[in-house]
């Protein structure tokens, strides 16, 4: 394009106008892209918050972690010889290992066959275990004498149809150490129920019989918080700026 000196002024004005228009268009396009991204993000969060039901725990999509959790806490094996649920003996160290959640909330109930309130609340515990199957880990730790590990303890578990939950019997020379490892607020009384969230934070403890509705509400809250926390993290990871790196030639 040839520009004569006479219309040079007009050319400058037109060109300036053109550049401004292009710049504005660019800005507008970027703004549109950002808006769409934001809209997408808000939609994902809203959809998940509203439509993702509690039973479809987001944690389950994290296959690696869930598989690892499943490996560690499996359904209680049967005692082959007697066909009764298997009860595994643990010491204080074994107990400490059990207290670490594996990507899911962890509910632990300490009980004994000689403890009346423990036996009374057990059917509710079994029901909770069935209702929240795969969403929380539920284990029981018996404080019975070691002599009952193949006797009254598995018999009671069988009678309660509690063969789905891993069962342990704690035998330790230092009860105080074991109690302190579980919670500083536990005075050693049975039954004792403790709920940890997936991060291992104590959410609920109860010495004495738990109130079923209350415990269920705490589990629901913990699961909901877990989903929300993960959803909050998801869009952030999606929208994190991606750094493009030039491929190195070999």
């Amino acid at each position, binding site marked *: 394009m040839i520009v004569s000196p006479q219309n040079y002024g007009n050319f400058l004005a037109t060109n300036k106008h053109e550049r401004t228009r292009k710049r504005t268009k660019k800005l507008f396009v970027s703004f549109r892209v950002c808006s769409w991204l934001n809209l997408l993000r808000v939609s994902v969060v809203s959809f998940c918050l509203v439509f993702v039901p509690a039973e479809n725990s987001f944690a389950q999509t994290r296959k690696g972690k869930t598989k690892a959790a499943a490996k560690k806490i499996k359904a209680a094996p049967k005692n082959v010889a007697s066909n009764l649920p298997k009860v595994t003996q643990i010491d204080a160290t074994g107990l400490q290992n059990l207290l670490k959640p594996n990507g899911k909330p962890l509910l632990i109930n300490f009980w004994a066959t000689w*403890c009346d309130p423990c036996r009374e609340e057990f059917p509710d515990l079994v029901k909770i275990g069935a209702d929240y199957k795969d969403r929380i880990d539920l284990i029981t730790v018996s404080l019975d004498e070691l002599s009952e590990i193949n006797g009254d303890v598995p018999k009671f578990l069988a009678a309660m149809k509690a063969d789905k939950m891993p069962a342990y019997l704690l035998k330790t020379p230092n009860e105080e150490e074991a109690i302190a490892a579980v919670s500083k607020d536990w*005075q050693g009384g049975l039954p004792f129920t403790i709920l940890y969230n997936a991060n291992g934070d104590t959410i609920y403890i109860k010495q004495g019989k738990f109130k079923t509705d209350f415990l269920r509400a705490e589990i629901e809250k913990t699961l909901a918080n877990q989903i929300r926390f993960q959803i909050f993290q998801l869009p952030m990871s999606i929208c994190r700026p991606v750094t493009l790196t030039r491929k190195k030639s070999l």
Partner: protein
Amino acid sequence: MKKLSFLAAAIFAVAAFISFNNVSAKEGLAIGATMENFKLTDTSGTEKSFNDLKGKNGAILVFLSVQCPVVKGYNERIVKLAEDYAAKGINVIGINSNSTETMEKVKAHAAENYKFPVLIDKGNVIADRLGANVTPETFYLNAKNVLVYRGAIDNNKSSDSVTNKFLRDAADADLSGKTVAKTSAVAFGCSIKRVTE
């Protein structure tokens, strides 16, 4: 982004804090605090005063239960404790705070097992005041009614596995004017069935 992360963490922390408020622990009388005199009825229905029952060097309050197998497992040790410390001027006093155990049962259980008085803590008033939670749980109060030790008798409910006699160590140290190294301990036991539960 940082703001969002912070917001999420804050919401999570608040939710966790609210939930954790469900955790209840009965604190009761602190070590070094003085227990005021109290009156309860014994198994014969007679009102007894703590100050009248305690020994010249103090008293050991033991929270008991008729049904609790852990108490049953400790009975022999409790009886021996009462004999040994009566000679040292410290009287053992039993207290039953379980709302589920009747006067008749407590009376029969006490007559069968103990030579020391067993008081009925109706409405778990004294259990609440002291912060007793399980049976058997002990509170050693010295001559001035100052709480010196609270908690487990020893470190295992099985007598053959005991390696630390917390209560005896605390009482002996206090009697000899030494500092009590361990002023509290916990062990497995039966939860006290309170009237409010």
